[in-house]
């Protein structure tokens, strides 16, 4: 298992490197870096200072070096709007996003996995058809629209839930639901097909031949095996979730990094945008690594790999 983790960590480092390269490339080469990195309404002196600070008239590799060294120091520039370092801004908002993502992911697994298992065990019958319908709708409705509809129903018409902000668990319900709905459908689908595949395997046949009660066959033998691809997908989906969280956080004014990104683009605060994108990408790399480690622990075939 150690070798596996080391390999994965190495791969993560490579991804981080490539990420920084990509960001750097796009800013320097496709945009107008001076205009972006200078505050709106900057004087020619300010712009000259920017040129100096970022070395915009020096060769590209020098610029990259400057870029990377400030990244290593944790200096991602200063937000124009907030007049605070991007890094500290990001770190202060990060827990909110993690909280939202965790709840949404938990919701998607709690709904998705049992309904997928139910659909597989009752394949072809009512629960399976209901599940397929749920999956279809869930995968086709954009999450931010679901969020808007939820606000319409629960805040405007029923007045039960607050429509924006954070602070109480009540604030968390609708954003988590809107965010998690799509993934609940995706997880349900995969659980169902994974379960169906497992149920057709030889060891399940043997479990039945042994005379085990059907509940044990499903709950013990089928379940754990069927779960593996689903957890892999869930791990990958965490990444996608952070993507989608941008719009959901905007709809609900949830104070997370997604909303921070939105503020950045609305206020034309480029250092903020760049910083959030870099840190977001880095976070995803770490999340993927963590998922790989969890995966290694669950599956004994990897755990015992020499």
């Amino acid at each position: 298992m150690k070798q596996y983790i080391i390999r994965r960590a190495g791969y993560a480092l490579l991804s981080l490197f490539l990420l920084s390269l990509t960001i750097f490339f796009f800013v320097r080469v496709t945009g107008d870096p001076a205009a972006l990195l200078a505050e709106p309404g900057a004087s020619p002196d300010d712009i000259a200072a920017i040129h100096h600070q970022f070395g915009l008239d020096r060769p590209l590799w020098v610029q990259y070096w400057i870029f990377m060294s400030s990244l290593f120091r944790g200096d991602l520039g200063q937000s124009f709007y907030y007049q605070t370092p991007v890094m500290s801004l990001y770190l202060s908002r990060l827990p909110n996003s993690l909280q939202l993502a965790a709840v949404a992911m938990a919701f998607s697994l709690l709904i998705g996995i049992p309904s997928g298992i139910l659909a597989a065990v009752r394949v072809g019958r009512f629960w399976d058809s209901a599940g397929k319908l749920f999956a279809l709708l869930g995968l086709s409705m954009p999450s931010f629209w679901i969020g808007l509809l939820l606000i319409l129903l629960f805040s405007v018409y029923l007045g039960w839930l607050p429509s924006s902000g954070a602070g109480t668990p009540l604030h968390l319900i609708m954003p988590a639901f809107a965010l998690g709905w799509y993934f609940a459908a995706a997880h349900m689908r995969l659980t169902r097909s994974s379960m169906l595949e497992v149920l057709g395997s030889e060891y399940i046949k043997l479990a039945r031949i042994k005379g085990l009660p059907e509940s044990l066959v499903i709950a013990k033998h089928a379940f754990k095996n069927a779960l593996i691809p689903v957890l892999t997908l869930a791990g990958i989906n965490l990444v996608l979730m952070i993507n989608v969280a941008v719009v959901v956080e905007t709809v609900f004014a949830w104070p997370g990094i997604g909303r921070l990104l939105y503020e950045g683009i609305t206020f034309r605060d480029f250092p903020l945008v760049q910083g959030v994108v870099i840190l977001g990408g880095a976070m995803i790399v770490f999340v993927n690594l963590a998922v790989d480690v969890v995966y290694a622990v669950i599956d004994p075939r990897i755990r015992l790999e020499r």
Partner: protein
Amino acid sequence: MTMPAQTIALPPRVVPRRRSRFRLGDVPIFPLFIIGAITFIAIFANQLAPHNPEIGVLAHRFRPPFWQTGGSTQYLLGTDQLGRDVLSRLIFGARISMIVGFTAVIVAGFIGTVLGIASGYLGGWVDQIVMRLTDAWLALPALTFAIFLAAIVGPSMWNIVIILGAVYWTRYARVIRGEVLSLKEREFVRLAIVAGCSRWTIMLRHILPNVLNTAIVLATLMLGVVIVAEASLSFLGVGVPPPKPAWGLMLADGKQGLMVGYWWLTVFPGVCIMLMVLAANLLGDWLRVKLDPQLRQL
């Protein structure tokens, strides 16, 4: 392998895979109908829309749909905050969604397929470069990447198309490359090499037609994703810029009226998006099963 005495005349396109027969009962009527209807609406928007989608009458702002009190048949689905007719905006929005959606998918598909074939077939440093590129791209979530790019180059409809194409090509490249790798080992490719075809001929005339199936399935599956991405970008304000009636933009505008219960500004554009995505997903699923069951893991 002995060389033949005379030159082999290779058939213009060798299709090693069985094509499933089309039976009428299998045709997915619902998604095709939806996509057909939306396409029709998009093409004939000028004729179908009752009002100008970009200019409204301020005095008629926030009118509800005709079946509610305060509404009228003049504005069937109500008006928005600038007095613009929602129905007309939806109709012209179909045009935008179709254009952006299809073009972006084609751009991404083109880049991805070309690079996928090159990377898979030529191998070596071409492969390495393309693979590292896709790795770099995939380190960033697509939407975030798109937002980032839009922030740099500024939003406009065609910029969005290019951005979305640039963000999503990696999905194609990976899958096509895998296909090409397995196709490379097949008999008909070896035959072509032996017969002296140049690498370009092989890639163009032998490999390309065989990955077309996969590319088409991928394109349909990506259509839904791209449409939601465009709607999200427009909703955030970095997509198609106002006053163009993109559905995502309508949702952003609609948020203003949401808290006072102007539901029609939110519900209708969302339904349109959902129908489009639903149709694309259903069509994609059907195609995937029909054209190649091996793609089921996508």
